[in-house]
């Protein structure tokens, strides 16, 4: 690309910005900036002048009244991020007392109070229990003997309420009683050291508040559009995050009809963190998609053909949160990564990471923000690095020596005081050496061949800093379109700029802004077109639609003479909305002719959504209300989901009831229908036994009957004693047997195998000493036998498969150890889980040789914890 033969005139100064800062709400209007003398044509005597801003651009009109949802809302309730009123202290009095900018006061005390109320056990569990008798919560006066050792809390609570009412009053004095109480208990009442807790909470609150003001982790946005390679059908792929924690990555095929329509189910990946950024670039006909979460970055390759599955290539983990991930438009599988510690890496899938720079300080002047950014330039080996103060380019081959300043917040670019870089973006698709830099006040286009001097500058007047930008390159002679998007306010602005001035007789001219900026629909704007809801639903809907934007993508679609633009916007709630702009060819993209003012205002966008859009709104609403329907509360007993503790694979049990269980069930049902009874739980003689031999103690009735009989007779305790001694003896036998076998096998086993087995043995012993005798009591958690080992005597119907009781296999020390749970926590976890398993009395132990097989895990089977049969718990006597 040739360098413009003449540039627009501008002053060049050095040093810090001189112009006073501040938001300038109208600074972008009514200015040509500069003019440039075009080259006079052959016939023309007078040269034409071209303005830097104010040239006519293309006319794009919104096709619909508001943005339309592209995808149906995903299941699961969206949890909105905290609002200012959750964090800030609100009081009229307080506001008057603290005028000025720093009016925000964090409501620290309320948050701490919430913690004490919500987690009393954690806050003062043990002391609360100890002092329980010494606190009196009633209204009555305390009698003499009790008064010596009891405090009446009601008065204290009244004092606190009174204090709350007077909050913010400059003359507030603590009630002496409260002071006395806090003086007395502050040091010992709390389980967690109060100072430490307060520090952490305050830090977190301050963090939340600064995120609310400006959350830069979302920079560049988490939405990407991958157009399809085969140009025939207008298809593409939308890459977006989803799920309640926004940690699922979706690749959704979308057909671009009148309204974009999802096709098929998306390719889905579950990631281990909230997705902050999705970046994509096309190299050699393949798309490379980079995904950034706080501590992980990953890269996927998506073949250009439609329907080809995305393939994950590599993942890296960072110690410090990553703040940037960009994909190289030049070389396949190259990315650049920045972390908040000020490190910039060039990441190649083939060769790994190369550190280019490490500097915790900002580049041009001191700024507190740890945000860093990096992108590619026209030279595949030169990367740009940015922080809030400016941009530098450095050569990856010699990053220390070869670098130059591309942009500085200073007089060079005519910046204002307090201006900071928000988002830099390489505009390579439009022009190989151009760069976009946005700040909270302006947008700049830079040419890396003329560093520091912006070739274009325009005050964008957006209310929130533009965190997202998207470039749609125009064909030669036509304008390039840039979309700027803000997060909190969901603003979307369409700008056009031209690099080649066709106006001046085909010669090269500098960069100029074309047309006026245009505001586009945002997600929140569609609320008025949705059917009215019940008030509380309407409120929720409004809240959801007004969620901060989290990404921006767009595509140009040319269908013969009809050109249209599709713009996708992602919200933090995971909704993807889209709008179409159509090109009006009425206005020729020619320079303004004399006296002929550019044409009048375009038609306003339609006032009501099209029928198709209205239908889409209704579908979306229906899906939303279905997804957000609250689960019925207080109807089910509290249950603990094991899925939160273990992954699905850990919990993978038998696919369904075993054939034996089925049989039993059938038999039970049949018997119930007949009104008969089952005397023995033996499988029917007709059916072939699925197991080698189900066990049945030869002598006497089954243990349950014995036990019930004993309980009826009143000497149940004696029965228990006998039984434990019996099982202890049985266990002793089993362990001895195992040791013998081990000894025998020693010669044959490899060293590592024997090591494993001895380890197991030790841990079993230590576990026994951990557990103590309490587990032997009759209230011992139920023993759920795994598939295939159901003892004939134990009725499987009693323990339904959906029982909340934890799978015992999970509790064995081997499996806990396998999952990396430290020894000291194993018992806690076991106790914790056992609480949830109430219940059915202990089924009888399997006896005989099978029992010994069950309780001694062979060294081969211990590794696969899922298929491992339960190891028996009570093992006294060892």
């Amino acid at each position, binding site marked *: 690309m040739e360098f413009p033969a003449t540039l627009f005139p501008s002053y*060049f100064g050095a040093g810090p910005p001189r112009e006073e800062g501040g938001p300038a709400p109208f600074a972008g209007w009514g200015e*040509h900036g500069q003019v440039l003398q075009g080259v006079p044509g052959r016939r023309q005597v007078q040269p034409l002048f071209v303005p830097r801003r104010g040239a006519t651009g293309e006319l794009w009109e919104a096709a619909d009244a508001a943005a339309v949802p592209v995808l149906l809302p995903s299941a699961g309730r969206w949890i909105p991020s905290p609002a200012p009123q959750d964090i800030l202290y609100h009081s009229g009095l307080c506001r008057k007392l603290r005028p000025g900018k720093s009016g925000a006061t964090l409501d620290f005390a309320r948050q701490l109070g919430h913690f004490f109320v919500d987690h009393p056990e954690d806050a003062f569990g043990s002391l609360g229990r100890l002092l329980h008798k010494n606190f009196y919560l009633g209204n009555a006066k305390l009698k003499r003997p009790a008064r010596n050792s009891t405090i009446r809390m009601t008065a204290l609570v009244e004092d606190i309420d009174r204090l709350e009412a007077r909050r913010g009053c400059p003359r507030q004095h603590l009630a002496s009683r409260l002071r006395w109480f806090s003086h007395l208990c502050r040091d010992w009442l709390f389980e967690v050291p109060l100072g430490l807790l307060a520090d952490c909470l305050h830090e977190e609150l301050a963090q939340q508040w600064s995120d609310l003001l400006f959350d830069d982790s979302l920079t560049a946005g988490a939405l990407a559009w991958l157009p399809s390679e085969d140009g025939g059908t207008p298809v593409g792929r939308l890459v977006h995050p989803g799920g309640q924690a926004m940690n699922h990555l979706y690749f959704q095929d979308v057909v671009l009809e009148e309204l974009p329509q999802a096709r098929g189910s998306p390719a889905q990946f579950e990631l281990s963190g909230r997705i902050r950024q999705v970046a994509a670039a096309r190299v050699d006909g393949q798309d490379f998609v980079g995904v950034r979460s706080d501590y992980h970055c990953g890269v996927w390759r998506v073949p250009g053909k439609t329907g080809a599955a995305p393939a994950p290539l590599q993942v890296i983990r960072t110690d410090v949160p990553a703040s940037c991930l960009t994909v190289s*438009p030049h070389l396949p599988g190259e990315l650049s990564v920045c972390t908040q510690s000020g490190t910039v890496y060039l990441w190649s899938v083939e060769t790994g990471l190369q550190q280019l720079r490490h500097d915790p300080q900002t580049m041009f002047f001191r700024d507190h923000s740890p945000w860093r950014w990096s992108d590619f330039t026209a030279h595949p080996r030169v990367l740009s690095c940015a922080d809030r103060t400016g941009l530098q380019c450095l050569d990856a081959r010699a990053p220390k020596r070869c670098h130059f300043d591309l942009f500085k917040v200073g007089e060079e670019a005519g910046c204002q005081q307090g201006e900071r870089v928000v988002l830099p973006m390489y505009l390579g698709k439009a022009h190989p050496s151009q760069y976009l830099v946005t700040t909270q006040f302006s947008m700049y286009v830079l040419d890396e061949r*003329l560093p520091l001097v912006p070739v274009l500058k325009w005050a964008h007047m957006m209310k929130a800093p533009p965190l997202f930008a998207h470039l749609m390159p125009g064909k030669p002679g036509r304008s390039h379109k840039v979309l700027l998007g803000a997060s909190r306010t969901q603003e979307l602005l369409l700008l056009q700029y031209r690099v080649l001035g066709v106006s001046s007789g085909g010669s090269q001219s500098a960069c100029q802004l074309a047309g006026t900026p245009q505001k586009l629909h945002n997600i929140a704007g569609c609320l008025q077109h949705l059917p009215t809801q019940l008030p509380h639903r309407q409120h929720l809907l409004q809240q959801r639609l007004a969620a901060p934007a989290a990404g921006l993508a767009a595509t140009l679609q040319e269908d013969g003479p009809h050109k249209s633009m599709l713009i996708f916007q992602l919200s933090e709630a995971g909704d993807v909305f889209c709008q179409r702009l159509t090109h009006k060819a009425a206005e020729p993209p020619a320079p303004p002719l004399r006296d002929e003012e550019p044409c009048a205002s*375009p038609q306003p966008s339609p006032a009501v959504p099209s029928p198709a859009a209205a239908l889409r709104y209704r579908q979306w609403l229906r899906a939303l209300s279905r997804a957000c329907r609250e689960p019925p509360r207080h109807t089910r007993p509290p249950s603990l989901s094991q899925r939160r503790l273990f992954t699905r694979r850990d919990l993978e049990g038998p696919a369904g009831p075993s054939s034996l269980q089925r049989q039993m069930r059938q038999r039970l049902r049949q018997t119930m229908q007949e009104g008969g009874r089952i005397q023995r739980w033996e499988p029917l003689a007709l059916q072939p036994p699925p197991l080698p031999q189900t066990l049945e103690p030869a002598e006497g009735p089954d243990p349950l009957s014995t036990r019930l009989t004993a309980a009826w007779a009143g000497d149940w305790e004696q029965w228990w004693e006998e039984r434990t001694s019996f099982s202890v003896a049985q266990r002793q036998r089993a362990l001895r047997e195992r040791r013998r076998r081990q000894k025998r096998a020693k010669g044959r086993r490899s060293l590592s195998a024997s090591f494993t087995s001895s380890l197991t043995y030790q841990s079993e012993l230590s576990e026994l000493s951990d557990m103590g005798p309490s587990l032997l009591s009759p209230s011992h958690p139920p023993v759920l036998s795994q598939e295939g080992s159901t003892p004939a005597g134990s009725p499987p119907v009693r323990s339904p498969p959906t029982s909340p009781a934890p799978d015992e296999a999970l509790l064995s020390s081997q499996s806990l150890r396998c999952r990396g749970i430290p020894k000291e926590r194993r018992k806690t976890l076991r106790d914790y889980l056992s609480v949830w398993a109430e219940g059915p009395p202990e089924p009888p132990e399997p006896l005989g040789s099978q029992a010994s097989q069950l309780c001694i895990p062979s060294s081969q089977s211990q590794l696969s914890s899922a298929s491992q049969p339960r190891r028996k718990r009570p093992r006294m006597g060892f």
Partner: protein
Amino acid sequence: SSNEHKLNFKKSKEACLSYIQDALLQKQWKRSAEFLTCYVESLEKDYSREHIGPSEMIWRIGTEILWHHSQSNVKEFSCFMEQMKTLGVKRYLKVCLEHVFRLLCNGHIDEAYQNLSLAESWRFGEQTAIQDKEMKLIQAYRGLLDYCSWSKQKNILLEHGEDGFSDLAVEREMHSYFRKAAVNLKEIIKIPGVWDVFVKCYVDLLEFYGDHNEARQVLNEYAYNSKFPANPNAHVYLYQFLERQGESKKSLISALKILHDIVPSHELMIDFNTMLQKSKKRKKRRLGLEVIFAALDYAGWKENAKAWSCLARQMKQIVISEKHLDWIKQEWNSRKDWWPGFHFSRYLAKRNWQENKSLSYEKALVAGILLGKDCKYFKYVSHQGCKAQLKRFRMLKKFVTRHNPVYLRISG
């Protein structure tokens, strides 16, 4: 309460502004004009100390509306501008400048000139730094317009001169334009900045009157003064001046060398390369190879057939003579890990073949020399070329196969 809102002037002002902004961003010019007429009231109580006061806002909004409004015309626009000039004293020069720009863009050169002269004579209190800058710009633009008149007169004179007739009055007028233009243009180009237009005009004036030393000094200053930004055009103008002056190859090369150092991807690098290739000195030919390699590093040059043919020609020469293979080797060393993916992938071979056969020929030659005959790019292109029975490609295949050992020496 509504009562409070009625009284709160500031609040309703803000609301009004937000309506205007909304209308402007949606290109509803009429609506925004109606709101603006309401906003004008705010001038009565302008105690604001904000960055942009109401008078400036009215000027900006009004201008924008008048640019686009279907019923506006230049006369009305000028009338509005005159009012705006008196409204904000501090912004007088800025408004004048913008008014002039508008007139220039619409081709009202004479009116613009009048406005510039008027603005130049404006005085009000002590000038601020910004006003000083604006005044300099006003003078410079007046100089530019004087230059335009001068060049018009010059053309008339030259046409007449061909007829063997000279008009003294026209000549005198032309000289007076020269003087006026030269004074103003000379002033602005002393101040650090990007003054491409003004420098070009000033140098043209000086050259016409034969003041080559002054012109050279101006161009040198513009190119080499460290207070000025590193503007590639400054070096281009200097180079073009030297070329016009018929300077020696050596000084031309040194001018381009500096341009190469600051912008290796400048389009003049092809000229530079051809100039260096023709040189008899080894060092210069070596520099030529460096220059063309460096240019092809950039994404903008990827499909530049001319550059590839320059590189292919020079490499072919080196391979045939088998001298200086180490030059290629050194250049290749820092590129061998990324050029294959950047230039010589199979995907690019396919695309280049489809879009530009001669480009793919040149690239295949370079790829064949650098990466050997088994390289994907070369294999694909030579195969396609032989299939299409193009003689050129058959020769290419032969050449690369014959010189395959060179590849081993380069990569080794």
